[in-house]
């Protein structure tokens, strides 16, 4: 599936071999991936914490909208762009 096919009904998963992990020594979240570790920005970390292989993109957006008391359409756009980018970077798959 390409990023242009991404919809609110798309179930978002981590690609096999990629995971979000808490780095307790440095007290931050990291993305563990083949031969590299990325540091997600704080917003990306909040999104990735909701990626569990069962939630859809729409459900992730609505949970974030509730948690941060923000409009769904604003958050929805930003999350869509972020998830698309992480699909291109082989972190997530839809």
């Amino acid at each position, binding site marked *: 599936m*390409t*990023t242009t096919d991404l919809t609110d009904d798309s179930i978002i998963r981590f*690609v*096999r*071999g*990629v995971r979000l*992990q808490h*780095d307790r*020594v*440095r007290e931050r979240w*990291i993305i*563990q991936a*083949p*031969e*590299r*570790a990325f540091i997600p920005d704080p917003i990306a970390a909040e999104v990735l914490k909701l990626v569990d292989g069962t939630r859809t993109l729409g459900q992730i957006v609505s949970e974030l909208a509730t948690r941060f008391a923000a409009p769904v359409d604003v958050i929805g756009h930003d999350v869509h762009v972020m998830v698309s980018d992480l*699909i*291109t*970077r*082989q972190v997530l798959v839809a």
Partner: protein
Amino acid sequence: MTETILSPMSLLAELTHRCPLQCPYCSNPIALEPRRNELPTQDWISVLDQAAEMGVLQVHFSGGEPMSRPDLPDLIRHAVGLGLYTNLITSGVLLNEKTFPALVEAGLDHVQLSFQDIDTANAEHVGGMKGAQARKMEAARLVVADGMPLTLNFVIYRENAARVPQMLEAAVEMGARRVEIAHTQYYGWGLANRAALMPTAQQLEQTTQAVEAAREKYTGRLAIDYVTPDYYADRPKPCMGGWGRRFINISPSGRVLPCHAAETIPNVAFPDVRHDTLAHIWRDSPLFTMFRGTDWMPQPCRSCDQREKDWGGCRCQALALAGDAAATDPVCSRAPDHERVVRVLETLPAEPPPFRYRRYTRATDEVG
């Protein structure tokens, strides 16, 4: 000035120097460690425990051929239990349907599989093993069929540089997620074979163009890591991200090193996991502190605006080319010894000389 000591991110566990292949650019030292000197399983388990405690995030099981060690699945399982990301760096010639399931079951996260070339005849000439290419192709098939992420590693040198486009195409066909197009680094065996391996400036330009074209063509399907031969650069590479900043290498016999070539550094004791803790070695050993940060730097590094970007380049290269591990890396155009690098490139032979293959000397041990 007191240097900030960061926690290490990455551990390269060189489980053995034994390997069925004999590649003349091998990153192992010229003096290979015989089997009888290899750390036993329980020492590696302790290394993994200590590394995780210190903040290491990823462990790369390497060699030699790490699959020569029958305890590899146990070490992977232990590392996975500690939350470490586990990577197997392998030639693939021992990875088959009998051996792979135990690695999957242990929780291995990723495989990096090396190829000597995409052309079978030349690949087997360089690796020195008949039938290796078919075994590697089968290894790639098994990893991809399992769904585990696969990175292919192609070391680039004079004879295979023209085939980078075919390597990249093959990587996509084989289902690899990542590929490393890595020009030979000239240490140890690579340095001994430099005249046979070093590409021309024109070849380097062609490989760079092939990589750029493929990055565009395969966006989102294949990530390409590209490593150039720094002899052609104006500025040195930030070797290991800086000495003693991110990276720990453990040799098969338990020596703790800031990089895999550091055993060439003279006049310093090599710390050993059998005699000291990893944390103490990392923080305080003379080997790890001698080139950490910027205090050790000579001019022009000391006052250079790049000093905390490239960290003075590579200490082993400074030793190999300038005869002094504390010199500015001679690949830097500002280095007093830069002329030596220029001379190497200007005097490349028209015909590459024969390889000096990676082998144990008779006095040490057999290849197993």
